[in-house]
Each structure stands twice: as C-alpha cells, then as structure tokens.
C-alpha cells in the first residue's frame, strides 16, 4: 500500500510503485479532472502541484509522490470559492474544448505563486502546455487579469 495526500486528504492505494501518478489519481482514486494527453510529459494536460510546484503527473511514479503534498484541479478552490485564476478563466471565456485547461490552470497557478505579476516573457517561459484548440490569446489575457485581481 502506498499513502498519498491529495488535496489535503489521505489515500491508501494498492498499485505497483512504478505506476505513473496520473493513472492513480484518475483511475484508482477516481478524480478525473487531471487529464491524459501524451504520457511523456510533453503536453502538460496532467499538470498537478507537488509540494506547490507544477509537475506533469504522467512523468512521476506514484512511489515518488508518496508523502508529498499533491494538489489537483479539484483541490484548487478553497472552501468552494474559485481562485482568481479560475475566475479570470471564466471571465475571459478561455476554454474551448477545455480538455487541456485543468493542466493549464495548474501551471498558471504555480507561476502566479512564484511571480505574482508575470511579464509576457515570464509567461512564455513558464507556460509550455499544448492547447490544440489554440486558446493562447485568451490564456495570456486571463493570466494578466488574474495577476491584477
């Protein structure tokens, strides 16, 4: 059994320790907001926070995640109140198909924690998630709006 702390709650899971964290979050624990896109840490759809740091959960084994503080998209809002980033996403109608947006929001939330007022260059460097609908223009606008809020 491996013990995980996700969104402040403990979970004991009976899986092979080399299973990617992504699949334990999605299929074993059943929290499906974190998405599978590539499995090779290229696209960012599976981004979660590990001890506050944006991490691609398809590229981390569940064994390595044990004992760390894991936050998923479901755990971002505090007491049910959407974060500034989530509010900016709604205000700017950012998502199109929306599939990559959990990961995008997790990556942006980590960036704003580190750099509350990011420049365009900061955004370009930190946000490398793939979005095939291509809603980058709205993502950028929403990041700046969240930073101002």
């Amino acid at each position, binding site marked *: 059994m491996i013990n995980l702390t996700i969104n402040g709650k403990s979970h004991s899971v009976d*899986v*092979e320790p080399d*299973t*990617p964290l992504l*699949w334990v979050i999605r*299929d*074993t624990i*059943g*929290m*499906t*907001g*974190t*998405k*599978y*896109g*590539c*499995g*090779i840490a*290229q*696209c960012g*759809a599976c981004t979660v926070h590990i001890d506050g740091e944006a991490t691609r959960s398809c590229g981390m084994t569940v064994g390595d995640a044990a004992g760390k503080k894991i936050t*998923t*998209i*479901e755990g*971002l*809002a505090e007491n049910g109140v*959407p974060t500034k980033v*989530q509010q900016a*996403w*709604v205000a700017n*109608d*950012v*998502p*199109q*198909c*929306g*599939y*990559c*947006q*959990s990961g995008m*929001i997790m990556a942006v939330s980590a960036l704003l924690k580190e750099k509350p007022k990011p420049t365009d260059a900061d*955004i*370009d*460097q930190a*946000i*490398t*998630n*793939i*979005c*095939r*609908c*291509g*809603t*980058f*223009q*709205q*993502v*950028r606008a929403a990041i700046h709006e969240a930073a101002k809020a």
Partner: protein
Amino acid sequence: MNHMPKLNRRSFVVGTATAGLSLGFNVPFLTATSAQGAPEVNAWVVIKPDDTVVIRIARSEMGQGSLTGLAQMVAEELECDWSKVTTEYPTPGQSVARKNPWGDFGTGGSRGIRTSQDYVRKGGAAARTMLIAAAAAEWKVPASECSAANSVITHKPSGKTTTYGKVASAAAQIEAPADVPLKDPKDWKLIGKSVKRLDTVDKTNGKMMYGIDMKLPGMMYAAIKACPVFGDKVKSFDAAKVEKMKGVKKVVQVGDNAVAVVADSWWRAKTALEALPILWNNSENAKVTSASISKWLKEGFEADKAFVNNKAGDVKSGLGAAAKTVVAEYAYPYQNHACMEPLNATALYTADKCEAWAGTQHGQAAFAAVLEASGLPASKCEFYKVMPGGGFGRRGRSDYVTQAVLIAKQMPGTPVKLLWSREEDMAQGTYHPVTECRMTGGLDDKGNLTSLHIRLSGQSILSSLRPEALVNGMDPATFAGLSPSGEAAIGYEVPNLLVDHSMRNPHVPPGFWRGVNVNQNAIYLESFMDELAKMAGVDPLEFRRRLMAKYPKHLGVLNAVANGIGWDKPPAPGVFRGIAQHMGYGSYVAAAAEVSVNGNNVKIHRIVAATDPGYAVNPGQIERQIAGSFVYGLSALFLGECTVKDGAIEQSNFDTYDSMRIAQMPKVECIVMGTGGFWGGVGEPTICVAPPAVLNAITAATGRRYRSFPLKNHGLTLV
C-alpha cells in the same frame, strides 16, 4: 458518414430510459442537465416550473462554441430569459424513435449553425407561439393580444403577466403551429451578441465530463493496438504471455486488424499490451514510403487525364501566348489531428441491450456504429454523447466506438472503457490528405495574369469516406477555394483558367481535418499569386485587386486586412508583411501578417484577420475561433508532418509531432465583418489564410520561397 441502417421504430418516452436509471447509478452528465419530467414544449424546448429553459442541441460541441450559438438561435425566437438557459443533447436513439425531429447530428464542415439555422430558429418560434397560446387560453383572451419577452408573457390590454414555467405544461398540449414567421434580422436581440459560452465553468474546475472520464460500476479498462500498416491484418498473438500479468482480465482480437487487453486499470492494460507478442499479415502496403507516395503524386503533374472542376477560356493557348510564364511546384504532407483527448469510448453489452458513450462529432454515425458492431436492432441500442476533448474532423469517424463495442461484446455485462494511447492515436489517424500541386501562370506584357493552370495531384477524402458523394468520379471537395462558384469559390477572374485534379489515393486513410482542403489550396494559390506579382513587378495586394472586380466579398475581406495591417505604410524596420485571401465553408476570409526572420528563426508579430460569415451569431466566439484556428494552422505549417515508412506512420507522440506553444503565439487582431444576407461557417474557414500570409511575409523578408511543408524541414523555427 450519413449512412443509417434500416431501423425498427419503437415508441420512446424522453427522459425515462437513461442509462443512469437503468444501471441504478448516477452518470453525472445524463442527470445534471436532464430535462426529465419537465414539460417538453416541442422537440427543441423544455421548460421547467422554475422557468429554467432547456434547449436541445443536436450538433456536437467540441470547443468551437456552437452549443452556445445554437442556443442563442433558439432563444432569440423563443424570447426567453437567457440567464435561465441550459442545454442538453437528445440521443440518437431518441431521434430514431421520434422520427428524427432534430435533423442531422453531424458536426463537421463548419455546418453546425449554417445548415440548421432555419429549423432551430423555427423550433424556438413555434415554442414561443405555443406558450403564448397557452397563456391566452388560460386568460380566455385572443393570443394576438399577448406578447412574450424574457420568459414573461404579457396580455397588453389587462396588464396580466405570467411566466413560461407556469404555462409550459399547458403549452405542451397545444398543437404545434404549421409554420411560424421568423424575425427580421434587424430585430435580433441575442443573435449577434457576444454572450458568454454556456459550458465554461466546469472546464475550469475539473468537473466537465469528457469521454475519458466515464465511470460505470464494475467497469474495466481496455488498451488497443491496431496493425500499424493501414489495411493489413492480425496474423496471431500470444495471449498466454500476458494473461497472468497483474489485473489482466482478457486479451481479445478486435475486428480483423486489432488486439486489445482488458484489465482492472488502464495502466495495467497498456503495460500488458506492450508486452503482448503480436504478428501481422503484411501486404504490399508495407512497402509504401513517403518518397514512393511523393513520386507517384509528381507523376500526376503530367497525367493526361484529370478531373476538371473549373475552366475558362483556353489555358493552353493562353500560356502559349503569354509574355512571361511562371511554373512552381508545391507539396503538402499528411497530418494527424492530435486532439488533446486521445480517442476513447465506453461500451456496455448485455443480452438485451448495447449502450455506448463517447465524444463524437456525429451522434447518429456513432449510433449506427453501435448497431452494426453489436448486431442488435436500434430499439436495443443507445449512444450517449459526452464532451470531446477536441474533434477537428477526427471524431466524425466512429472507428473507436466500433472497437469499444466489439470488445464489450466479448465481455457481456461488463462495462469496458477503451482508451487509445497517444501513440495509437498518432498511428491510427485519418490523416489530412497528401497532395502536390503544379502551378503554371502566364502574364501579358503589362503584367496582368491572363492564364492560370492549377494541377492538383493527390488524395481524395470523399473517395475513401463518402464515395457516394463523388461526381462522376470527381471529388468536388478537393477543389475547396478554387471552384467556379458555391461555398468555396475562387476569388480571381483569369481569362484562361484550368483547375484540375489527378486523383491518386495511397493506402493511408484520409480524413476531414480542420479546414482540410482549403489549407493546402490557399497555400498553393496565395503563395503563387505572390510569385506572379513578383514576376509582374506589381505590389501583391494590387496584383490581386486587379483580378477581383467581380468578387466583391472576397475583395471586402482582403481590403479589410490590408487596412488593418496598414499596407499603405511601411512596416517597422526588420518587419515584413504578407497577405492572403480565400473562401471556404461559405465564408470569405483574409489575413495579413507581420514577421521578422533572424537566421532560421521566424517570429510572427501580428496577424490581422478578417472573416465575412454573412450573419455573425456570436462575434466574441468567432474571434476565438479565428485565433485558435491560427494555432492549428500555423502548427501545421511549421511543425505538422506524418511521414510514412514501411507502410506505417513514423511519428508517435508530441515529441515527434509538435504543436505551437503560447510563446509562439502571434497577436491576432480580428475583424468580424458579418455583412449579413447569408450564413457562412466559422470553425474552419479562417485557418487557411494564416499560413500563406506568413509564407508571403517570410519570402518578403528572406527572398526565399518555400514550397514544401512543414517549414521545420527547411530548418525554420517558429519562435
């Protein structure tokens, strides 16, 4: 794709036979917005006692926003309170049982709104008429003295009011009006407004349910591998090698070309599948390479016979008499859709029923796939749409639904979720077809274009997917944007013109793809217009304008982007411009780009884009579609290529098939013209003008003309 088998019709009561209830399990997407129990005014409109308006949407939302746009169309005529609008999908099974009240479920070709605008508005208008009639009957007053706005019905003489929610049950009993007049567009209050999307919040908190998120009690997970060589079959596989691996439940053959492992988690299924020895029966297809395809396509330039789609004058004698001729050959590669959500479907097969769930662009085609794969009649099948994580044409096919049912059929009573790995998704695409093009142009001594021969050579999508749509063997869709008239007409008048196609269909399966044939045709034509302008010594914008007197709508968008970019003033030092226009899916589109080139690094600073879709239903969402389509189109231009080796696709994931990131995103300024009077598409048309505008700007910057794609093959990097 529109093929539907003959079905046994059986009466069906809406909302009583959801899978959720039959399984005794809460399937969120079926119950969250379900109009179950509330009065159905007509097929399009359900109104709950609390005044919530449920608008039924037959076409699929996949990110393009037409769920919201279609709801606006119904609500405009319904005169309901927009803040109380929710939506739900009717199922294709209900559609069959009720004799198809919602029309076509298919969502492709940018047709979601433009080919249903008439009847969805009438659905809203009819419901409004019935609601007013119900209130008038209750008040015992003539309906003509009553009016409705914002879900409130008012009897003007007495001042009495009621709400839609209060009269909906009575309205449901009233006979539908035979015909209802629609509003004059000048009276629209909701159509033309940039209202917010209806499906955003759940996409920001992890709650939106995509196909991959399906959960059913006792559900098992399947991973699949189909023969990498298209058209070839499974020879054998050694199930005993993996059957004892942890969590593995079953190893099954799927159809004649694939093998799946079913396990208690997807990761275990995938791990076992990778360890499973599979042998394939390979045919001559296994010898095909990108080089062999290209050689065959180039032979098409010289072919005597070709399908002629557009002809004026005599191009042969025109070219013979030209003062100058220009010849250029272009090539466009195979490309995968690479939807962010890899293909997947969930199916449950029992002795008396087969149900499936998936994101799809075509509910009815997916339903037909369930029938065919299960072997059960329509009355024993159902298909439920879930949000797709992108479609772009790929989810118009139902191959993954068929596979899920074929697997579930081998495990009766057990729900099975089939998920393709990204690698499988890359290997089993229906690819943007491959074409090459030889352009031959003739100029007179004043630099006017007098003759143009466009010889296309390559693959036809319709031959593969809808052979019944061929016209005497010709694929009209191949000529998108080059046709004499219609929804994808060329915008230039050339006295001697010939557009023809030498059809050559390799074994790699082609598919519709965002924009698809306009993508390469716009690159071919608009790059070559710049080549001709250069030879003529005329400004590229001016060169085009001279040919466009008879095409005011094409010219309208071209002029709009020229003004927007400031074509008459020089760009900043080091910055170069390119311009392009085209027509597709009933809309006129143009783009003007500003780029700078530093060594091999290309920076796109800005693109001004214009679209004239006639009526612009939601300009804010149209702007998002334009900017988003540029990401898809420019990713394709710089990065997108699927190469063929030994009959299979070589690229396997985003590391070998990359996509643009935010750092590479140019500033996109949109001009939504909406001149009215016609209904053009939105999701696809604009994609095609960004690449030629950028290519022309790169040539302006470097003096080099690039004619084969993607540009990464020339060492160019988008930064």
